[in-house]
């Protein structure tokens, strides 16, 4: 493999029902920064059906070229058609690197593509930098977030990485940016399509995305029960905040998985994060430590959450929620 032949940072643009996902814009923002440093270009790969009208918006968000693959086979995501499309682009265009969102879709597609292209994939990166020889240094948590590892892919291309939503920053739309939109045709081998999507069921119609909340009121074991969660709802109302939780509370069934913060839930970065009765296991902390202001309340003064909190209160979380809500209502 002659590494010199491989050029360009390629970003997989995830869309669902035609709606471009935030994580794709975050990846574009990061790719833009890397490309400027490497003096290289950013290519956005927009796959789907009847999605071409969105291509231009990706240039404003950092792409130099948008590769549009518009095909009925790509109308809804299944692994094989998407893998065929991406792998044809890889073969054709020889990308130096490729970034994919670490969503349930990207974490299905990424490893399949990496195996077919026989290259390395770093999962769930939290940081991507340029190394001494212009290689990408991708840093990710390991051992349940206890350890950080920087991974390199020295002799294979593209250097692939997935990045979780909410970790990187999108750039503001810059309508003055110029770029090219290219329609790209893929030859599909439909004999390999062995998975048929029957239906997609949305379980929560007024779905809240806690990664977008400015203030999060988050609860853990110390909140105890349903009553504790109702009290949190009350506080969230007064503060115009959203409620989130640690894994223990999700497993106990008090709150849905979509509101879980942490390694196996979501990464959040609000202006203010309240941690009520959350002990602060590393898996949880990994998902919220970048919050601007962290206020933690826990009855155990040795709780690890206090190591990341800007303000820690040793006390009864439920009492404090109640009093704080009363005070704020005044």
């Amino acid at each position, binding site marked *: 493999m002659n590494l010199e032949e491989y050029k360009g940072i390629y970003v997989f643009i995830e869309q669902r029902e035609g709606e471009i996902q935030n994580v794709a814009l975050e990846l574009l923002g990061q790719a833009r920064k890397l490309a400027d440093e490497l003096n290289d270009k950013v290519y956005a790969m927009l796959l789907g059906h009847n999605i071409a009208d969105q291509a231009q918006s990706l240039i404003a968000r950092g792409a130099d070229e948008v590769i549009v693959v518009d095909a009925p086979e790509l109308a809804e995501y299944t692994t094989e058609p998407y*893998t065929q499309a991406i792998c044809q682009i890889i073969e054709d265009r020889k990308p130096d690197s490729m970034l994919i969102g670490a969503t349930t879709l990207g974490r299905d597609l990424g490893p399949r593509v990496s195996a077919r292209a026989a290259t390395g994939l770093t999962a769930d990166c939290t940081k991507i930098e340029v190394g001494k020889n212009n290689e990408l240094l991708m840093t990710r948590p390991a051992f349940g977030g*206890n350890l950080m590892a920087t991974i390199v892919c020295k002799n294979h291309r593209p250097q692939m990485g997935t990045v979780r939503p909410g970790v990187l920053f999108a750039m503001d739309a810059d309508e003055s940016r110029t770029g090219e939109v290219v329609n790209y045709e893929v030859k599909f081998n439909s004999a390999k399509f062995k998975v048929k999507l029957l239906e997609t069921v949305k379980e929560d119609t007024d779905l809240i995305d806690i990664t977008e909340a400015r203030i999060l009121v988050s609860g853990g074991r110390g909140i105890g029960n349903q009553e504790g969660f109702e009290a949190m709802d009350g506080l969230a109302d007064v503060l115009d905040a959203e409620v989130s939780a640690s894994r223990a509370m999700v497993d106990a069934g008090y709150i849905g998985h979509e509101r879980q913060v942490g390694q196996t839930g979501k990464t959040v970065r609000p202006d203010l994060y309240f941690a009520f009765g959350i002990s602060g296991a590393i898996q949880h902390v990994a998902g919220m430590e970048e919050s601007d202001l962290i206020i933690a309340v826990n009855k155990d003064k040795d709780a690890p959450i206090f190591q990341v909190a800007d303000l820690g209160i040793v006390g009864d979380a439920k009492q404090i929620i109640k009093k704080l809500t009363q005070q704020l209502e005044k």
Partner: protein
Amino acid sequence: MNIVVCIKQVPDTTEIKIDPKTGTLIRDGVPSIMNPDDKSGLEMALQLKDEQGAHVTVITMGPPQADLILREAYAMGVDRAIHLTDRKFAGADTLATSHALAGALRKIDFDLLITGRQAIDGDTAQVGPQIAEHLDLPQVSYLEDLKFDGDKTFTMKRHIEEGYQMLQVEAPCVVTVLSSANSPRYMSVGGIVDAYQKEVEVWGFNEIEVDEKDLGLKGSPTSVHKAFARGLKPAGELYEVETDEAVGIIIKKLKEKFILN
């Protein structure tokens, strides 16, 4: 129906702590367990066995002590256990690991291959889909539930962010299962006793069908450039006071940061 389940022995990462003074991992006394997603995958296989009489094989790749989880699998009710171990596999990243496992799986007939979605020591979720690619089989990841329709197809429920998807998949196929899919059964007492009487087949490079250049360190496109404990930020203020005073402190802080007027 023949089912193979890939399982992995992992350190229980919820038990790993960081030494607050040195910032390094404390690994002493951390128990090794069967990876939770894999264990739910195994339970799914055993339920199919209970319902319609499947033959269930487990396979693990790992050092000699990984024998323990194969014994555990026997005690839970599997029919066959294979331990894949060879120096040639050492230093493998996910891609090289998937090649070794795929090499072994080429030697086994199956209709359904189950892996966990991801292992808690690496959290990559890559090995299952990569095996599927090497074997040229369809994959469904993030599996919550599955039903055999007969006639070589499965109906599957796959978790996604907004809810779930129902899929129809042709066998043979590969699925990666979430630990939330079910609650794995306990080992039976008789099963535990019998588990140590049963044979665990030990396979090395010579028993499998794979290109040696795809294995171990040589077959790994990725490598660890450096590893480090995440830096702890300086601790903030900590107060141990009565509720009223605590609430006052919080409100003061919110005003300081312009969150409240």
